[in-house]
């Protein structure tokens, strides 16, 4: 009996010891910079005096008072929501088809889908910039020659362009999340529904979709949080004037040199994202607890 207790305590001690390096790394590169950023957001800043380490709410009041910042945050979340909806609408059927493929085709198309992850974000977005490129861009030429639109659509420096490029960049995360959920499905379940008289559309709507919904939602959480905090795509497609939270923080830090204000923007974005992600995760878990008991 005493021997077991001895082993238990030594096990616990070994656990702490083993976790120590990772814990120190986490503290050093995540916790401390984060705390410093939060503290920085309460400091004062002036054109000529620079950063003053005092505790004031100036930056936070400015963010909440000035509609300029509200517009920026609304744009950030609007773009992220649309990008998420597009990845879900396109990614779910994509994953379903991928899951039904066999042999070499499956691995080939999986590679095509995760392809965007293998290319640098900047290169990928510059590719989109080339496709969009003003009124004579490839995308506009294609749309106009196919008769879908009469006059060229503006893609560059618009939210539309930003959403398209983001949706493309985030697609792999959605497809992989849905695909994982699809693989957990009992393949006989679809046959069971068929045998009970359901058409194939009914099977997808009533049987497959409800079961993979948690996968779709977790994919949506990933895509949303990555889109809302994305930097490179909004910076290149949106340009200097169409700013989102991440590019705003960047500008405050590097152009205006108003670090405390930039820190406040970054911290607000972080808090908003954490609240949204944690909140929706809790909702999903409550909604689907019967299924995953």
């Amino acid at each position, binding site marked *: 009996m005493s021997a077991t207790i001895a082993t238990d305590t030594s096990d616990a001690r070994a656990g702490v010891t083993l976790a120590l390096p990772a814990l120190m790394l986490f503290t050093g590169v995540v916790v401390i910079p984060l705390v410093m950023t939060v503290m920085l957001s309460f400091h004062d800043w002036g054109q000529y005096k620079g950063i003053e380490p005092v505790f004031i709410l100036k930056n936070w009041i400015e963010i909440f008072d000035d509609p300029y910042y509200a517009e920026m945050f609304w744009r950030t979340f609007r773009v992220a929501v649309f990008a998420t909806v597009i990845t879900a609408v396109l990614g779910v059927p994509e994953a379903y088809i991928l899951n039904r493929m066999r042999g070499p085709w499956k691995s080939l198309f999986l590679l095509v889908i995760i392809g965007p992850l293998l290319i640098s974000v900047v290169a990928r977005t510059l590719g989109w910039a080339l496709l969009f490129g003003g009124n004579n861009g490839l995308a506009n030429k294609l749309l106009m020659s196919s008769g879908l639109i009469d006059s060229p659509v503006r893609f560059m420096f618009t939210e539309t362009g930003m959403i398209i490029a983001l949706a493309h960049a985030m697609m792999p995360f959605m497809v992989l999340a849905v695909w994982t959920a699809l693989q957990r499905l009992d393949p006989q379940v679809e046959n*069971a*529904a*068929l*045998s009970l*008289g359901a058409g194939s559309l009914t099977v997808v709507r009533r049987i497959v979709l*409800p079961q993979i919904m948690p996968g779709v939602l977790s994919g949506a959480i990933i895509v949303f949080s990555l889109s809302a905090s994305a930097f490179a795509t909004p910076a290149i497609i949106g340009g200097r004037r169409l700013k989102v939270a991440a590019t705003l923080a960047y500008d405050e830090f590097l152009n205006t040199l108003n670090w405390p204000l930039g820190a406040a923007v970054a911290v607000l974005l972080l808090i908003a994202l954490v609240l949204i992600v944690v909140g929706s995760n809790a909702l999903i878990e409550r909604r689907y607890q019967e*299924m995953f008991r």
Partner: protein
Amino acid sequence: MPFLALDRVGKSFGPNTAVEEFSLDVAQGEFISFLGPSGCGKTTTLQMIAGFLDPSHGTIQLEGKNLVAVPPAKRGLGIVFQSYALFPHMTAAENVAFGLEMRKISRSEREERVRAALALVGLAGYESRHPRRMSGGQQQRVALARALVIRPSVLLLDEPLSNLDARLREDMQIELRQIQRNLGTTTILVTHDQIEAMSLSDRIVVMSKGRIEQIGTPQEVYEQPASAFVAQFLGKTNEFAATVDCTAGPAKLVAGSWSAPASVGVSGTVTVSIRPERISFGDTGLAGRITSRIFQGNHWLFQCDTECGPAIVIRQNDGQPQPEQGTAVHLTWQATDMSLRAGTAPT
């Protein structure tokens, strides 16, 4: 006219033949089992009847109508899958109601029939449970209720009891048989468990390597196996080679020093097979020695070394003293308990 007729049905996957020349007539209300080891084509055949696979050739007819052209959703068959394939996001009642919903049956009738179906399988009161919160046996019952509630013309069972523990499986066998008898639903069961096939079916189709080995009642396939495969797959059996000696007087079966009168019409080399429970120990007969003796409650299992090879003997535990290990014995049996097949048994 048979209720369900399969005529020379075959299925190949590329160069591999899964099922060939499968012909079977099923009468209405009959309980048929497809019995065989895994990979013998029994599930493939069931899937062709269900419509999940198209036969490469041959026809399947239900009540005289060609079934192959009908999509699975329109066949009106009830299927219980090995994994039960319940819809995990629906309650038991919603699972059972799904087939009725697809048939556009009014809500009130639907509720009535769902309640009746769940009561039939002994799950009254479990309507609002989700499958994940039910035991294997309960999930199995929901799957059965879901298949039966649509009043299928044929009930197809794909190894439905193989995921249950032994005790529950026996209970479910009895219950399944009772439900099937009461409803009179024509049923096809796929199984690799010979006990299950024998205790449930009116007729058994024994399959091996995509072919039908024998079709017959449980007694027929057990007592008169048509091939060495059937004899060995259903229960235990002893087989040894013998020759028919016609040189002097009436024909005799001879194997070593053992001999017995041969029935008319056999000649050359034959395989003699005897079920272990039909053998008793006597003063004359096939000489041997008991190598091990195992007590199994209601019977004793003896392994013997005879001059024709190893043999097993099962004796009822009727309270009589049984020979010890190492005893020299003679194995005897009635001539009617012995079946003969031309050729030597492949061993």
